[in-house]
């Protein structure tokens, strides 16, 4: 139920309520985007047909570095 899948915004409808989202495995779906601010090419997290958050690729890539830093700082204490 709380499963949410990341996907890429391909096209936004004229009324800006829906967008075509590509899940990267060849699946494309119409998604309601009224709960988030989106732009074409951006990534969103989709739950039950709604984008619930915008994903920041840079933040995602930095996650592992952050974890490594947390582990090593703990060593120093």
């Amino acid at each position, binding site marked *: *139920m*709380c499963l949410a899948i*990341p996907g890429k915004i391909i096209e936004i409808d004229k009324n800006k309520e829906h967008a075509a989202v590509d899940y990267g495995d060849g699946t494309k779906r119409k998604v309601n985007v009224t*709960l988030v601010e989106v732009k074409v090419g951006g990534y969103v997290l989709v739950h*039950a*047909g709604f984008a619930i958050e915008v994903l920041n690729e840079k933040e*995602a890539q930095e996650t592992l570095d952050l*974890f490594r830093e947390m*582990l090593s700082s703990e060593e120093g204490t």
Partner: protein
Amino acid sequence: MFSLKDRKLAQDIVSKIKKSDVKLKFMHVCGTHQDTLVKHGLDVLLRNCGIEIGQGPGCPVCVTTPMEIEEMLLLARKGKTVTSFGDMINVPGETQSLRSMKEEGCDVRTVYGIEDAVDIAKNNKDLDVVFMAVGFETTAPTTASVLLRDPPSNFSILCCHRTIPEALRAIIKMGEIKINGLIEPGHVSTIIGTKPYEFLSKDYHVPQVITGFEPIDLLMGAWMLVQQIEKDEASVENEYTRVVHENGNIKAKQVIKKVFKPMDIKWRGFPVIPKSGLTLRDDFEKYDARKKYEIELEELKDKELMEPEGCKCGELLRGLASPFECPLFGQACTPETPVGPCMVSIEGCCNIEYRYSEK
């Protein structure tokens, strides 16, 4: 795309936890967390490090009560078009499930989300379409958004939305199980942010970490809880910073607030939990299937409904048992012939154990 893979880092986290030499019990409340834990064998790995992680009431379909199931079935029997997420269709009621009623000719339709249900109503003005609105804070804004956009008058919802933080308070206050730390659900938190959990740390000294769904997220979440416990601290930490922000999704919170108000509600396996449910505000009453079809639902009034005989779903949802302790698990109760909802839903702990034990 956003996959976090780093075997060395995972090994480092595990060896640090091992070094801590702990004996702890953690609870999470999310089927997707349970799926990651079991699929990748992290539950066993962490058990070998002295940490038991179990799933509490973190499966919306599973915590839906027998009464809500009967309401849904009765509406289908009375000729309404009942729409629901896929899992709900197989949840057994007292004598039937939506699936068996569909086979008998009732109009039951599986939808991917609430907008599909509204489309059915728009395209079939002669049908009375009811959407079974289950789900936690992740799903509630999808229902709210749709109701704010004036759906057709032949559309209504059977509201079964519930909210997580007050249910966690109930578990802690009931005191049946000692919980040393809570792994908080990443996608509920995407909506509500980090603050609604703070009272649990402040009032009950429970460490909490909001955690993502990759294996490395869960290992990291466990390690962060161990850190708090070793320092005798209790606060809400956020491991899932790439998605969850302190204030959550403000737009989503606003639509929830506009459409719903908190209510006291029973969860399967629990007594009534104060303020742990959502009910429609007066302005949206016309979409409330319980009010709209009060006469049709009359026969359920004061009806006593029992849990299925021998089913341990209630204890599982309170974190008191594991699927393997249920005598029905994998015998009388399988995904093909489920006795309780924890075997039906792909987020239910029995279904997850059964699925991966087969492989």
